[in-house]
């Protein structure tokens, strides 16, 4: 007689298995994936209830909610992966309002055939990032699309947080005279990603700077609650972020090329490809616009934090109805720092 164990469920083969349509169908396979992967990795009380939604306690105050989709390719890169990027990215979006991030939700759209080993690697990374940041992933969803209809995995994260009293940080609050600060070297993430792109292979030790900035923000806000603007210069880079704020606030800006922190390897990689570091993506930096009397205090608070050791004051907001962002070049002239047009592509000319 065979001794069949009635409760036996064969565990998912994470090493060799692949995502298939049953994982998204909502039945047993889905439940098993959720259980053995997501609940196991994120491991918190909310997910352990196995409810569809999470009941959360939110302290009093103004709430902030932010959401971001992550479609980065390649999925794994020096310094990180799509998973921790997704966690950091949304934590940062929430933090850029000056809010303390409290909870995250994460949805996954998986392509049929995607290796489960890679999925586990991504989810493990997300869980580690979430734990390190102290912001739990409390709910989520999984869907599967047919092969060819997705790029491996798309992740969307949504975050909620609360803004402390007395803090009013928004894109339209920059005023002439304000100081412009950046928390560290620009262009790292974009260069790290590009070094893996097919046909652009170059060797570099540059890693993505992906990081959760909420604690840096908390230190800055503690030093100066009157900060006007915060934004993380992701796609489009530092220049695009400045142009966005300039437009929202109806003013101009002047930055000084000599003050911009840029790593030597990032400069060199950009020279190779004919790219401008000002337009290359960052995933662990922020731009701060602060009233002039607060600039020194905010800078000190940034430099005292591990994610802001290379922080610098790089320019000023000026009165300019055209909203131009200009740069005093290290060479001595002045030039526009315009919006990024289309995608910045390498050039030979």
């Amino acid at each position, binding site marked *: 007689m065979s001794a069949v164990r009635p409760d036996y469920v064969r565990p998912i083969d994470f090493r060799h298995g692949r995502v298939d349509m049953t994982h998204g169908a909502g039945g047993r396979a889905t439940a098993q994936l959720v259980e053995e992967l997501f609940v196991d990795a994120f491991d918190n009380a909310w997910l352990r209830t196995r409810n569809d939604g999470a009941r959360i306690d939110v302290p009093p105050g103004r709430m902030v909610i932010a959401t971001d989709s992550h479609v980065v390719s390649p999925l794994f890169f020096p310094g990180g992966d799509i998973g921790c990027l997704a966690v950091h990215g949304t934590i940062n979006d929430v933090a850029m309002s000056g809010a303390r991030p409290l909870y995250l939700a994460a949805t996954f759209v998986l392509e049929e055939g995607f290796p489960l080993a890679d999925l586990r690697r991504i989810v493990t990374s997300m869980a580690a990032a979430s734990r390190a940041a102290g912001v739990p992933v409390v709910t989520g969803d999984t869907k599967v699309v047919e092969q060819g209809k997705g790029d491996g995995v798309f992740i969307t994260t949504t975050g909620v947080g609360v803004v402390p009293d007395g803090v009013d940080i928004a894109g339209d609050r920059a005023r002439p005279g304000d100081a412009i600060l950046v928390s560290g070297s620009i262009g790292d993430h974009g260069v790290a990603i590009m070094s893996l792109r097919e046909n652009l*292979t*170059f*060797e*570099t*030790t540059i890693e993505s700077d992906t990081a959760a900035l909420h604690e840096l923000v908390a230190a800055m806000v503690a030093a100066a609650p009157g900060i006007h603007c915060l934004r993380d210069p992701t796609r489009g880079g530092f220049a695009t972020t400045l142009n966005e704020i300039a437009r929202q606030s109806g003013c101009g800006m002047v930055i000084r090329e000599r003050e911009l922190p840029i790593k*030597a*390897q990032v*400069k*060199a*990689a950009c*020279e*190779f490809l*004919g790219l401008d570091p000002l337009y290359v993506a960052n995933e662990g930096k922020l731009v701060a616009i602060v009233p002039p009397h607060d600039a020194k205090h905010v800078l000190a608070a940034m430099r005292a934090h591990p994610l802001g050791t290379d922080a610098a004051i790089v320019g000023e907001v000026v009165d300019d109805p055209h909203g131009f962002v200009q740069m005093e070049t290290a060479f001595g002239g002045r030039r526009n720092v315009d919006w990024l047009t289309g995608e910045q592509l390498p*050039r*030979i*000319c």
Partner: protein
Amino acid sequence: MCLALPARVVELLGPDEALIDVDGVRKRISLALLDGVAPGDYVVVHVGYALTRLDPAEAARTLALLAGVALAPNATVEPAA
């Protein structure tokens, strides 16, 4: 046109290839257009090929010339003919 930059040859690899370095960024490039390249040389690289060697003596001479011109902006200029 013709984005190219000077890079230091780190090592020769196989026939007609070299590893070059610019401030820590390294790339494999072709030496098919240039003979007699040695590690330590600087070459001008365009679209993955070394086009010419950079002459350090001439570079120094040009820099000295630039600095020299710059130092004498108030020197008397020949009167107009």
